[in-house]
Structures are given as structure tokens and as C-alpha cells.
């Protein structure tokens, strides 16, 4: 810190020495330029404070060494006084401008670097996504292709094995999708396409998409009449509901009942819930289950502990809150969604990035 001021002093000393060497041949105003040059260098390298010090010292040095009478701070001619005053103003303004230019250069370099990072991250994510998912899509397609062949061509064992391949490939695909979504949400590269829409419809489409996995389960809906439209990205909120139902399927038995529903809790909020009649969550773990890679009961249950943390990230990015209530019996996951979005009018749609995401 102090070194910067030392260098400022050193620069003025150098300017003085050079000017002394040149003095016989130059007038006072020419010598001043050497000092102005010194001040600009100090401003560019060491910043504002040192440059002001350098400007003041330059004036003092000019007065002491180059203005009549020499070797004292008196000034005899008014033109010399003017020269020194102009010198001070010019030195300070040039140093201010120099500093501004320097800051702009640093800022634009930083922005360029950030944009480059963002571009790199997006490219990396999409090629990672592509390279992981294309083989998975091929495996899924090939396994279902086997299952679609005429029944007499495959033995029961072979059919069963093809089913195992298919189900596991699907599971891996869900995991990869969750992992990528989590990364995208954290990196802020997910685009939100918000639109006012009925939550009933999103619940319905989530249940349709899960149809094949719900055939042997009891699942009910409990949607309050006259729910207001909510400003949401349907694809992402559908993902939240699917993850919550998926979670309920994993932690309950076939005889347990799962229920999906929604009600309005205040003028500006609705609550969506997924409840089950299973064993519930161990006491004290109600918050930890939303942490990444945390799993309440790892034994014998598949999964990587990402589903709920994605739910949390998506709900928070919508301005809502997610939590779990232990019911008797079972668990009830609830999340809120605001019914208003100040930036979005009913009947409009908008795209924006999830910058509000926080852990």
C-alpha cells in the first residue's frame, strides 16, 4: 500500500532529475510536460491516491527547482503561477481519465472472461448431456425393441432380462437427467418459461407421464375447486410433482395410498402436496432430506438423493418454499407457489434465467 506512494515520490524525483539535465535548453512550460507525463504514469500503474500525491509534489518541485527565485517556494512572476496551476489541473484530470480507462479495460476483460466461462459451461453441459444420453436412448430403444418382437420368439427368461435392461436404463436416464438439471439450476443456465396456468393441469400431466409406473398403485387426487392460475414453468413444476410421487413410490409399499392435491392458502399463495401412508421420515431429518446426495434410508432403496434437492431448487426459483410434514401415518411433502408474478401479466409468457436460485 505504502509502496505505491513511495513509487509516486520516486517518479517525481526522476522527473526532477531529468528536467534538471534538460533545463538549460527548455522553458518552464516544456519542463512541466515531463512532470505531467510522470503523473500519468503514476496514475496508470498505482492509481488515484499516488497520482494526486505525484501531482502535488510535481508542482512543489517545479516551484522549488525551476521557478524564479530558485530553491525556495516563492513565485515572482504571475505567468509562472498560472503555469503551475494549469499543470496541477491537467495532471489531476489526466490521471482521473487514465484511471477510468484502466477500470473500463479491467471490467470488459472480466465480462469477456465471464461470458467465455458461461459459454464453456453451457457447451460442456450439453455435450456431456448428449454423450451420456445417446447411449442410454439406444439401450432403452433396443431393449424395448426386443420386448416388442413377437412373444413366441423370446422365452420368459429372455423377456424378463430385456425388461431388466429397459428398467435400469430408464433409471439411469432419470439419474442423469436429475444430475444435469441440478447442475444447470446451480449454474443458472436453465431457462424458465413462465406462464399463468392451472396447477390442476400440471398435476394431470404428471400423472399421465407416470401412468405406466402407477398401474399397480393406489393414487388419488385432492384438488380444491376454483384454484387460481399460477405463474409457473409447467415442465419444471411437472418435474417437481413427478419427483415427489417417485419418492413416495420408493418409500412406500404397494398397499399404501398416495395422494396429490392442491389448495389455496392465502390471497397470494397456493400449496401443492404429495402425501403417502408409508413409514414417514425419521424425526430430525426433515430438512436434511432436501440436501444433495442425502438419503434417509439408503438400505435397499435405489436412488442417489438428488430428486428432492432438485424439487427444492425449482420451487425456490419460483419464489416458493418446500418442506415435509410427518403425518400419522406417512409423510406429506408440501410446496408453495406464488399466485402473482409482478413481471408477468395473465395471458402472457416470459422466459428468464433462474438467477434467484440459492442453496
Amino acid at each position: 500500500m505504502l509502496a505505491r506512494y513511495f513509487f509516486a515520490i520516486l517518479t517525481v524525483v526522476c522527473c526532477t532529475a531529468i528536467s534538471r539535465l534538460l533545463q538549460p535548453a527548455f522553458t518552464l512550460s516544456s519542463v512541466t510536460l515531463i512532470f505531467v507525463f510522470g503523473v500519468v504514469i503514476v496514475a496508470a500503474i498505482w492509481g488515484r491516491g499516488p497520482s494526486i500525491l505525484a501531482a502535488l509534489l510535481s508542482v512543489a518541485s517545479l516551484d522549488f527547482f525551476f521557478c524564479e527565485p530558485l530553491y525556495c517556494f516563492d513565485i515572482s512572476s504571475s505567468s509562472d503561477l498560472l503555469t503551475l496551476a494549469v499543470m496541477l489541473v491537467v495532471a489531476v484530470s489526466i490521471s482521473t481519465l487514465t484511471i477510468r480507462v484502466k477500470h473500463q479495460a479491467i471490467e470488459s476483460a472480466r465480462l469477456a472472461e465471464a461470458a467465455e466461462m458461461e459459454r464453456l459451461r453451457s457447451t460442456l453441459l450439453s455435450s456431456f448431456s448428449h454423450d451420456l444420453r445417446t447411449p442410454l436412448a439406444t439401450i432403452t430403444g433396443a431393449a424395448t425393441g426386443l420386448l416388442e418382437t413377437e412373444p413366441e420368439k423370446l422365452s420368459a427368461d429372455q423377456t424378463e432380462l430385456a425388461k431388466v435392461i429397459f428398467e435400469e436404463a430408464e433409471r439411469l436416464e432419470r439419474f442423469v437427467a436429475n444430475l444435469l438439471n441440478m447442475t444447470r439450476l446451480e449454474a443458472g443456465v436453465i431457462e424458465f418459461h413462465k406462464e399463468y396456468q392451472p396447477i390442476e393441469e400440471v398435476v394431470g400431466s404428471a400423472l399421465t407421464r407416470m401412468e405406466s409406473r402407477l398401474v399397480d398403485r393406489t393414487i388419488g387426487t385432492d384438488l380444491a375447486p376454483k384454484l387460481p392460475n399460477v405463474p409457473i414453468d409447467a415442465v419444471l413444476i411437472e418435474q417437481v410433482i413427478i419427483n415427489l410421487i417417485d419418492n413416495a413410490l420408493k418409500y412406500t409399499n404397494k398397499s399404501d395410498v398416495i395422494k396429490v392435491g392442491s389448495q389455496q392458502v392465502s390471497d397470494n399463495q397456493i400449496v401443492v402436496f404429495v402425501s403417502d401412508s408409508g413409514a414417514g421420515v425419521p424425526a430430525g431429518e426433515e430438512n436434511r432430506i432436501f440436501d444433495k446426495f442425502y438419503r434417509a434410508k439408503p438400505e435397499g432403496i435405489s436412488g442417489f438423493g438428488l430428486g428432492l434437492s432438485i424439487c427444492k431448487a425449482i420451487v425456490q426459483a419460483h419464489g416458493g418454499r418446500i418442506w415435509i410434514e410427518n403425518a400419522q401415518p406417512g409423510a406429506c411433502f408440501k410446496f408453495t407457489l406464488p399466485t402473482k408474478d409482478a413481471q408477468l401479466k395473465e395471458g402472457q409468457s416470459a422466459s428468464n434465467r433462474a438467477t434467484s436460485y440459492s442453496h
Partner: protein
Amino acid sequence: MQATEPLVILIEDEPQIRRFLRITLGDHGFRLVECTTAAEGLNRIEANQPDLVLLDLGLPDMDGLETTKRIREKSSVPIIVVSARDQEEQKIRALDNGADDFVTKPFGSGELLARMRAAVRRASSKNSEEKSSIFTAENVSIDFEKRIVMKGDQEVHLTPNEYDLLVVLVENSGRVLTHRQLLKQVWGDQYTNETHYLRVYMAQLRQKLEDDPARPRHLTTEAGVGYRFRP
């Protein structure tokens, strides 16, 4: 309609996906022409007059929207787009601009075959003169001539807009229709952004036609895309 097996042009740059589709589609009565770029695909469509196009959205030489538009300039062949999950936007724009349906990777071959058969069937019934005057799907039936809709043995009273919406969905039975397409066909060109109209009428149709409107059996939602009538 041709007596021969339907001809499919597959535009897909991933060799492994082409490999399993070659076998699966061949096994299920489709003839296949494989292309690895959009440019090649466009040439082949012109030369071969296929019954269906399967178009991957991640092609190296042209994006899905552009390819769909170019195909539509010269042919009304049904197009099914094959999209990855992070290509939502491209998928919707391809559908808005004339693609008939989509499957999302990873897809099961059963789902793909069903979509392909439905698309080929719709195209051939559109070309044939005779149009059935009565549509039936499980307990829902529509008499187009008399404009009567029945659920079981009960007549259902629909408003003109509800009826028009239902007819558009049913005429495209099995196919996804985007919000924009439905609004355009039922309300007209200037209403293509008024998705809230559409949502209100869909909710009313479900109330009148579905056993459990919260879990619709026929009038299903494709989140972020549009609606589909499932027969």
C-alpha cells in the same frame, strides 16, 4: 393408399440409434431410408416421396425448425421429430411450423411405433374421400353431421367453441397440438397468444367429458407444449 409397406425417411446422425431403428422398424413393417444430414434428407424426401419422416433435432448441418420449414416447402409428408430433453424450444417451434408429433429421447419402441402408425393413418385418411361421420373413443362419441356429443348414453351439451375445440383435437386424434395451433384453428390467427382462453375451454371440456377431470383419460396435457386427444 399404397399396398406396399410405408416408406420412412430417417434423418439421424447417431449411428447407434439408426442401427436399432433399422432393426425395429424393419421388424414392424416399415421400409427405411437412412440419412445422416438434413441436406441429404431433404434431397431424399424429394426423390423418394416417403410416407413418413423421422427427424432428429440435433443434426450437425441444420436446426430442427429450419429443416421442418424446408420440408414443408415441398411436401406435406407427416414429420415426427425426435428430441432430447434440452431441446424443448426447438421442438415446439418445429411443431408450430408443421411437424406432426414428437418423441423424446429416450423413447420406447412401442411409443415410437404407435406415433408412427397414427401419423401414417391420419395422412392416408386425410387423402381418402370417405370420412366417417361418427367418431368413437371408449365411452365418448361424436356425430359430426348432427353435431351431437355423447358420453356413454348421455348427450353432452357443448358451447360452439367447446365443440370446435373438441373436433380439432379429435380430427387429430393421437397427435399433439400446440397451444398456438389450437388457438389458430379454433379462434383464428389473431388469438395465437391467448393461451388462457384455451386453458379455460380445455378445463370445461374435461369437466363434461372425463370421468375424473383431474386425471384425464382422453384430453391429456403435454406440459409446456399443448394438448393431445388420446383415443
